[in-house]
């Protein structure tokens, strides 16, 4: 047994999600990524004397949406708090956040564990707060540059219980959170641009222990993969330290993605002393049952609900259901197809196969796909009716459909003259032609080389220009060859 196996890790994640609002949390500056520095800044963000914050209605709605999606309790009475600290990217000297009355408490997110089984990760809370500006330390030798465009951008902070046990579970948890906020249209989930950020609290203890080890907070991981790497490194580092008899310091460490290690941030600040107190400039908010109901009625389908529907009701495999629910847009497209055909499996194959590869080759998103889902359903129906073969549908009709997205597939099939021939007499004529043209192969077949059936079918498709119904032809071909 390896030393590592004596230990287990305890991991809790704090996720910050920038909300996709038009304006900031407490002022009307534009909320937009990538603008010219310091162009989306108002006197409120600059914290000029006498300015007052005013709460953005939309942020409450978004928080409720996420809370409902995670089955969290939504608080009716809430007020805001000031979290005090001095930092140049926070002109007020305090962050307006929710301390005592987070909008959501409890709730859960269901993920896959390392063995692919469902595992429930509990949530401690979700609360609303504001982002700080951006400090740029590595451009100028002497100065730090500050851009306040991000200061005041609304955030949802999602705090998990320490239910995560491995770096893979952390990866799966973040993937679920990102999928969820994207389905809910409340955050674009882009970790590279920082619109979704994650801090990890990690400790290790002997397996089966009831007492958690000292936890270390790791920051600065700009992708889900890097969160996984940082956790892997940190677990090993802590186990090695304990094995050497060292004491784990409660500290904040930063992940260095190039080296794949965590480094102590060595903050000289003693224990943080944020001196929270109620924010007097924002009136309390009250969220009534009617408001929660209203948000509930507008909820989009959730990935987990769709996954369960696809696997349980439609009989798709876990894999198919997973791919189809990966993004809301793809799932909605699939929903569009199955609204018009009952052949769920064929619909899944078309969306995951021809449609996706068309998009991949062109670097497009499903929202850019020109063909309406009803057209794909119509194509599936043509195959079901035996009017065209699957290969003709894929090789001829589908490409033509992407060129003429509005033309009915049947009309395309007729125009291209590829309607399948199921007429026994004409199929017989094709087969006799094949037999006539290939006397050598016929002789070999008759002397026992039965695997030549494939060759004859290929020839038949050539002669019939792909129109002979393969099911019928196969049967008839054997009969005629045997005689």
């Amino acid at each position, binding site marked *: 047994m390896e030393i590592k196996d004596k230990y287990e890790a305890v991991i809790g994640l704090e996720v910050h999600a920038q909300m996709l609002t*038009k304006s900031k949390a407490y002022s*009307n500056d534009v909320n937009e990524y990538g603008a010219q520095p310091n162009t989306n800044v108002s*006197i409120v963000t600059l914290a000029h004397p006498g300015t007052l914050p*005013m709460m953005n*209605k939309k942020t409450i709605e978004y928080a409720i949406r996420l809370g409902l999606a995670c089955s969290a309790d939504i608080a009716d009475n809430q007020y805001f708090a000031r979290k005090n600290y001095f930092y*140049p990217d926070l002109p007020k000297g305090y962050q307006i956040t929710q301390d005592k009355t987070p909008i959501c408490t409890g709730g859960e997110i269901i993920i896959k564990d390392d063995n692919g089984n469902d595992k429930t990760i509990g949530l401690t809370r979700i609360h609303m707060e504001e982002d700080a500006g951006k400090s740029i330390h590595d451009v100028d030798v*002497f100065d*730090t540059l500050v*851009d306040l465009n991000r200061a005041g951008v609304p955030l949802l902070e999602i705090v998990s219980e320490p239910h995560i046990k491995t770096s893979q579970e952390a990866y799966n948890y973040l993937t679920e959170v990102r999928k969820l906020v994207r389905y809910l249209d409340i955050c674009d989930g882009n970790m590279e641009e920082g619109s979704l950020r994650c801090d990890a609290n990690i400790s290790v203890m002997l397996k089966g222990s009831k007492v958690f080890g000292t936890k270390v907070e790791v920051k600065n991981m700009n992708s889900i993969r890097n969160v996984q790497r940082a956790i892997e490194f940190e677990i090993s580092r802590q186990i090695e330290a304990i094995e050497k008899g060292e004491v784990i310091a409660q500290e904040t460490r930063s992940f260095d993605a190039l080296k794949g290690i965590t480094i102590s941030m060595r903050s000289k600040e003693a224990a943080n*002393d944020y001196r929270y107190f109620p924010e007097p400039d924002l009136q309390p908010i009250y969220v009534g049952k009617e408001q929660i109901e209203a948000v509930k009625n507008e909820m989009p389908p959730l990935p987990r609900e769709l996954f369960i529907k696809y696997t349980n009701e439609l009989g798709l495999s876990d894999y198919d259901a997973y791919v189809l629910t990966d993004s809301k847009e793809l799932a909605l497209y699939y929903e569009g197809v199955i609204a018009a055909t009952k052949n769920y499996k064929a619909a899944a194959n078309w969306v995951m196969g021809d449609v996706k590869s068309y998009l991949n080759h062109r670097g497009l998103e499903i929202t850019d796909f020109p063909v309406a889902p009803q057209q794909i359903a119509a194509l599936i129906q043509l195959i079901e009716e035996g009017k065209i073969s699957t290969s003709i549908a894929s090789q001829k009709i589908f490409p033509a459909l992407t060129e003429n997205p509005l033309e009915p597939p049947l009309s395309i099939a007729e125009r291209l003259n590829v309607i399948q021939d199921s007429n026994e007499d004409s199929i017989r004529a094709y087969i006799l032609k094949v037999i006539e043209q290939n006397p050598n192969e016929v002789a070999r077949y008759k002397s026992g080389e039965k695997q030549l059936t494939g060759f004859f079918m290929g020839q038949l498709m050539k002669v019939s220009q792909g129109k002979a119904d393969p099911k019928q032809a196969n049967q008839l071909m054997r009969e005629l060859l045997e005689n």
Partner: protein
Amino acid sequence: MKITDETVDHIAHLARLEFEGEAKTAIKQEMETIISFMEVLQQVDTENVEPLIFMSEEINRLRDDVAEVTLTQAEVLKNAPKKDSDYFRIPKVLDK
């Protein structure tokens, strides 16, 4: 309540202020006076009294999610002691 030098140092550090010598003695004295005054309030029995956080009973003072550009970049940077054409410039805050 007695205010110690450590308390003064801690509070001063949080406020990014420095007190030495006479100034420190003076601020310590003033802090003690303030704390003593609060101690009078502490004597009131507040058992079963909900904390009063807001004087006004108004709730849900919200605004619609409408964005506006109210200042030009030059105006945003106008009062900064040090700046360039795009950014506020401040002394390095990380000693890497």
